[in-house]
């Protein structure tokens, strides 16, 4: 609360108190759910989240073995392979988008930059949070932060720190939206001034931890099927995070446009086609670079030796079916300005990323193990529960803060500071879901 008072200088004390009361009342009102509660999505995701809570109870009471199928040979399963390794690649859209809008200053993408940052921020919060569920001794999670020995030669140490720092950077990038929501004009100015710094730090950190996720597997050389292992794994992960993130932006935009139709600004709706075509072009380009890299690695490693049998076919399915084909579709989408093609390509490209990340971390990991790891149904439920919880928070934020809609009037017109109570008036039209 102190920050709020600091940002309302020149006001007499009684007024400040009433301002604070108004803010509290506003926050209380905002916390209430809006729209119909018993929608199919709410019921299903609610049940999944409930089941997740129960499973996690078991997990902390009886150990990881009670709910997961992890083995001594497969210590990292679905929670790390999907939630962390794949989820973070999907969140890569945030660093690419802020690069386009804040560094290259391409105004075309400005209408979707905030929603992309929000998505990235929430992905990191929830997926890094899911990482804690997977820790055997989570009470020691603070050790690498407080310096109860820094394992400086560990790639995981680097990834952990970069996750934390990136979450702070993404929060700063998103913070002006929170300030606008609360109607805090001065705070917003301060936070906006920090955006470029946060953006630059965030992009640098993202480059390192996106590749770092691949570098985690460098020492697992004898354990990964050679088609999915090379010393270039970090670079492959970095390059593929560009089109993974942007494909997620396209898919998320497609869904948001329907679900949050009333929230979105006119600019957001009008610019949809131009944005999708532009993103298609960038996706196609980065996928081309990725395929080129894959080819170089393939030839350099003389990988054709491993192409016989099922693994070769599986490798071709991933790289031709879900990289080359969506790449071609993206090119068509760009040339023909066809948003529908772009959406199909995005779904295929995302599926390809899931395949790739799960192949490295689970499917092609220890292929000769005596007992192959297959995730338990409880691991799957928890994975879905984490995603559901993220969607709930995302929806809550989008329905309340200026994420998809135009900037608040006071930011442009510099009229007298509106009270917080005035702001939500224009939201009465909004229907949840």
């Amino acid at each position, binding site marked *: 609360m102190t920050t709020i008072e600091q940002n309302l200088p020149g006001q007499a004390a009684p007024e400040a108190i009433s301002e604070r009361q108004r803010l509290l009342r506003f926050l209380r009102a905002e916390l209430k759910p809006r729209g119909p509660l018993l929608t199919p999505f709410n019921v299903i995701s609610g049940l999944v989240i409930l089941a997740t809570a129960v499973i996690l109870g078991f997990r902390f009471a009886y150990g990881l073995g009670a709910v997961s199928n992890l083995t001594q040979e497969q210590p990292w399963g679905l929670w790390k392979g999907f939630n962390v390794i794949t989820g973070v690649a999907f969140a890569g859209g945030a660093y690419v988008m802020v690069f386009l809008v804040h560094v290259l200053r391409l105004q075309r993408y400005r209408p979707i930059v905030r929603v992309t940052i929000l998505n990235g921020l929430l992905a990191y919060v929830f997926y890094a949070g899911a990482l804690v569920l997977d820790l055997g001794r989570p009470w020691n999670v603070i*050790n690498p932060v407080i310096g109860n020995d820094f*394992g400086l030669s560990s790639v995981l140490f680097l990834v952990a720190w970069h996750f934390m720092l990136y979450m702070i950077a993404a929060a700063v990038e998103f913070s002006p939206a929170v300030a606008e929501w609360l109607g805090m004009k001065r705070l917003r100015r301060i936070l906006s001034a920090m955006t470029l710094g946060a953006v630059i730090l965030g992009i640098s950190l993202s480059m390192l931890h996106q590749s770092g996720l691949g570098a985690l597997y460098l020492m697992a050389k004898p354990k990964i099927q050679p088609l999915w292992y090379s010393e270039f794994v970090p670079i492959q992960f970095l390059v593929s995070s560009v089109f993974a993130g942007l494909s997620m932006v396209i898919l998320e935009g497609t869904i948001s446009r329907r679900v949050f139709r009333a929230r979105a600004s006119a600019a957001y709706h009008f610019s949809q086609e131009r944005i999708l075509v532009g993103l298609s072009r960038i996706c196609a380009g980065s996928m081309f670079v990725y395929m080129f890299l894959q080819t170089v690695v393939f030839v350099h490693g003389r990988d054709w030796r491993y192409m016989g049998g099922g693994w070769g076919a599986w490798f071709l399915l991933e790289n031709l079916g879900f990289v080359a084909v969506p790449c071609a579709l993206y090119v068509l989408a760009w040339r023909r300005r066809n948003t529908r093609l772009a959406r199909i390509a995005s779904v295929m490209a995302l599926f390809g990323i899931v395949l790739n990340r799960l192949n490295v971390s689970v499917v092609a990991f220890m292929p000769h193990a005596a007992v192959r790891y297959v995730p338990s149904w409880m691991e799957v439920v928890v994975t879905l529960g984490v995603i559901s919880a993220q969607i709930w928070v995302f929806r809550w934020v989008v329905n309340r803060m200026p994420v998809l809609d135009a900037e608040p009037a006071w930011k442009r017109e510099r009229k007298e500071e509106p009270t917080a109570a005035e702001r939500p008036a224009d939201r009465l039209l909004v229907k949840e879901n």
Partner: protein
Amino acid sequence: MTPREDELDDRREPVTNCDRRGFLRVLGAAGAGLALTPAAMAQAEAEGDPYGVLVDTTMCMGCQTCTKVCAEGHGLPAPEEVCRSDTTTTQLSVVDSYTFPEERVEMGGVFVKRQCMHCLQPACASACLTKALLKTDEGPVVWRGSKCMGCRYCMLSCPFGMPKFEYDSPNPRIQKCDMCADRLAEGQPPRCVENCPAGALTFGRRSELIEEAHRRIAEAPDDYYHHIYGEREAGGTSWLYLAKVPFEELGFPKEVETESYPAMTKEFLYGVPVVLTLVPPLLLGISKAVASERPEGGAAR
């Protein structure tokens, strides 16, 4: 070949050295923006001559005494008297068995004791983000519960698959052979070595063990396959093996590299400070250059 008294007394000094080095490392890293240079450090640690054990499989009778005294000494349930190919959370040392035709191996059987190899530059220790797994100057790679987060990255990294995790405990530990570090600190050899009735295990400084192994091969060239497993595997291990037959026939992972495993992440980690120092100014430069071309809030492209 037990260590001399004075050698063991010397060990206490390097511990403080290690801490000081660790402190400097932290300082250095803070300066370089969380950048790390593991290779030089690993090099320095490998320069010492740690303790090790030479396992001569041609002498092992498969009596399982080592597994029994190991379980006793570590407060673990008594093991079944059967051969196993892999360690577990309750059996940190196992004896594996292989059969061969009589003309290749006398008596037709080879027994191989298995436990943590205590690498000179352990993948597990370099993977650990809290140094819960630590290569001590004396030789053992030990696990420290007060540091461990239970992330299991050590298990993913170890080429021998030695760290085992207690999946069925709410307070799980990483379990693996600790080379009886408590006894080493008191000047005693590991329990398995002391109790081996066949004399198949020899304890000593690693350099001496390698000399001894070479001597045995030279003295009886027909009785040994001419290779010391662990001399170069994974960059060198504190536990060394001699055998009559090629090691891949005895279940030793044949795809293990001779380069040390931490070296595989070296290039990546060297890239970190480079990216963190070069990318931000580059981005700032691009941003400023674009801004002067196209003022913020100006006409959209």
